[in-house]
C-alpha cells in the first residue's frame, strides 16, 4: 500500500510565537530534550548509514572483504559504464513517467466523476469505496493477485481472447508491471484531488458560467489552476515513490525477462544480495539517492512556496 501521507502535511511547524528572548535559551534546551530521542534515532538510522554507504562506494568489495581498499571513483566509472545500469535507468524512467501520468489522469477523472452533482450521495459513497480498494492492499498481495490474473491460462487472457505471457514476454513485461503499478497507485491521487475539487469555491464556477464559459473552458480556466498546487505536490511525491518501487517488481518479474523490467532498485538489490558486490551496490545506491534528492529539493521548495 502506498503511504497515506498528505502532500501538504509535510509543511509542518513554525509555531505562531516569536520573540521573548529572555526565555529563549531555556526553551531551546527544553526543546532539545524533547527532540533528543528523534535526533539520536535519525543520527543512527539516517546520517550514519548515508555516510557508510557513501564510504562503501569508494572501497573495493566491502562487508565481505576484511580489509577493503580505497579505490577512488573506480566503482562509479564501472557502474556508469555498465549497460545493465543504463538499462535500469531507462526502464525506471519509462515505468515512473508512465505511472505518474496515468495516476494523475485516472485520479483526476475519477475525482471529477465522484464530484459530479449529477449523482446522489449514496451511489457516490459506494463508488468512492470501490475506487479506493486497490490502495488498501500491500505490494505483496497486489503482486500475487496480478500474477494469477495475468497467468497464461488466467482470466485476463480469457477476457481478451489472447494467449500471451504478460509478465514473461520481453515485449509485454514492462508494460504489464507498469499497468499493475497504475492500478495500485491512482487512489492516492483520486482522494487528494477529490478534496481539492471540493475546496474550490462554487462562486468561481458560477462567475465563469455567467461569463459564458463552457464546461471545457471552466475545466481549464477554473478547475486546473485551482488544483495546480496539489497536482504539483502529488506528481513530485509520486515521482519520488515510483522511481524507488521495489516490492512490486521483485514479486512479479524480478527484473526479468532478460532485464526488460530491471529498475534501479532491483538492479542495486541484485548487486548486493545476489552477486554480493556490496561496493558496486553501494555506488548504485548513492546514485539513486542523488536522483531522489534532486526530486526532494524541488518538492521541499514547492512546499515552502505554498506556505
Amino acid at each position, binding site marked *: 500500500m502506498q503511504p497515506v501521507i498528505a502532500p501538504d502535511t509535510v509543511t509542518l511547524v513554525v509555531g505562531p510565537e516569536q520573540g521573548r528572548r529572555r526565555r529563549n535559551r531555556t526553551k531551546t534546551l527544553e526543546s532539545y530534550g524533547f527532540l533528543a*530521542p528523534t535526533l539520536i534515532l535519525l543520527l543512527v538510522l539516517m546520517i550514519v548509514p548515508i555516510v557508510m554507504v557513501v564510504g562503501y562506494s569508494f572501497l573495493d568489495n566491502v562487508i565481505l572483504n576484511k580489509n577493503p581498499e580505497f579505490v577512488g571513483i573506480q566503482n562509479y566509472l564501472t557502474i556508469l559504464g555498465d549497460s545493465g545500469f543504463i538499462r535500469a535507468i531507462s526502464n525506471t524512467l519509462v515505468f515512473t513517467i508512465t505511472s505518474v501520468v496515468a495516476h494523475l489522469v485516472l485520479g483526476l477523472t475519477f475525482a471529477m466523476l465522484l464530484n459530479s452533482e449529477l449523482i446522489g450521495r449514496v451511489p457516490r459513497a459506494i463508488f468512492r469505496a470501490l475506487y479506493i480498494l486497490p490502495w488498501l492492499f500491500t505490494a505483496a498481495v497486489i503482486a500475487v493477485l496480478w500474477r494469477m490474473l495475468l497467468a497464461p491460462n488466467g482470466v485476463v487472457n480469457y477476457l481478451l481472447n489472447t494467449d500471451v505471457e504478460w509478465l514473461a514476454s520481453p515485449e509485454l513485461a514492462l508494460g504489464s508491471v507498469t499497468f499493475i503499478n497504475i492500478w495500485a497507485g491512482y487512489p492516492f491521487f483520486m482522494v487528494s484531488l477529490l478534496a481539492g475539487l471540493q475546496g474550490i469555491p462554487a462562486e468561481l464556477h458560477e462567475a465563469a458560467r455567467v461569463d459564458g464559459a463552457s464546461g471545457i473552458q471552466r475545466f481549464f480556466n477554473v478547475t486546473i489552476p485551482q488544483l495546480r498546487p496539489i497536482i504539483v505536490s502529488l506528481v513530485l511525491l509520486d515521482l519520488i515513490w515510483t522511481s524507488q518501487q521495489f516490492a512490486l517488481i521483485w514479486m512479479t518479474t524480478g527484473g526479468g525477462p532478460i532485464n526488460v523490467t530491471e529498475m534501479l532498485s532491483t538492479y542495486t538489490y541484485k548487486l548486493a544480495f545476489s552477486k554480493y558486490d556490496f561496493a558496486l551496490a553501494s555506488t548504485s545506491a548513492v546514485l539513486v539517492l542523488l536522483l531522489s534528492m534532486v526530486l526532494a529539493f524541488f518538492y521541499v521548495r514547492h512546499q515552502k512556496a505554498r506556505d
Partner: protein
Amino acid sequence: MAMTVKARRRTMRAGVVIGLVLGAIFAAAPVLWMLSSSFKSNTEIFELPPRLLTDSFSFDAYIAIFTDPEKLRFFLNSYIVAGSVTLLTLFVAIQAAYAFSRFEFRGKRIFNVMIVSVQAVPPITLLIPYFGLVVLLGLYNTYPGLIFTYMVFTLPYAIIMMTGYFNTLPRELDEAVRVDGAGSFTALWRVLVPISVPGIVSVGVYTFMIAWNEYLFALTLTRTVDMRTVPIGIQLLMGQHSYEWNEIMAMSILGSIPVLVLFLFFQRYFISGLTSGSVKS
C-alpha cells in the same frame, strides 16, 4: 442541433454513470476475483469459462492456513513487529511534535527540513548500510533489527501528523499548567496527550499500516522462516507450494484484513487528515 437543457442533462448523467461503472470494474473486479478464488479449488481457479461462484465453494484454503503453525507464525511476527514499531514511534514522535508545536528554538528550520527530507531517501540506499549494521550489532534475523529500521520510515510521518494535530489545540491548555509551575514534560503527558487521543490513535494506526506492509527490509534482514512477516509469507507460499492459488489468495485476504479493518474504522480521519491542509487559499 440545440438540445433542450433537460435532454442535455440526461445525456451528461448517462455519461457520468457509464464512466463510474467502468471505473468501478477496473478498480474492484480484481479484488472480487481474489475473494472468489480463495473459496475455490485449484482446478476451478483456471477453469474456462471463468465463473465467480463455483459448485464446490469451500473454506478449505482458510482452514489450511489456520491449522498450519508456520503460517500463523507469519501473523504473530507481523503483529509483534508492527505493534512494537507503533508504540515506540508514538512515544518518540509525540515528544518531537510537542517541541515543534510549542517551542521556538535554534535549529528548528533545519530539523524540520531534515525530517521532511528523510521521506525522500530511497529504502534501497539505506538497505546496504543497515544490513552491515544489523549484522555487526548481532541483530540480524531478530525482531529488534526490524523494529528499529522500520522507525526511519514511520517516524517522519508520525512527527509531521502529530505536530499538525497539536497545532490545532489551543496553546493555553498546556501553557496554563506550565505557568502553574509544572514542567513541560508533565504538561505534555498529563494535559496535552490525554486530550489528543483521537490524533494519537490515528497516527498509531497509520504507523501500524506502514510497518505491517513493509517488504524490502523484512526480506533482507531476516533469514529463517520463523522470523518472516506476512508479506514475505505470501511470497514464500507462492514459491514453495507450486501455486496453490486458493491458499495464496486466502493468505492475501487474511494478510490484508488488519489494514482493511483499520482503514474502515479510521477512514473519516484519514481522508480529512489527508486533505485538510491541501486546499490552501
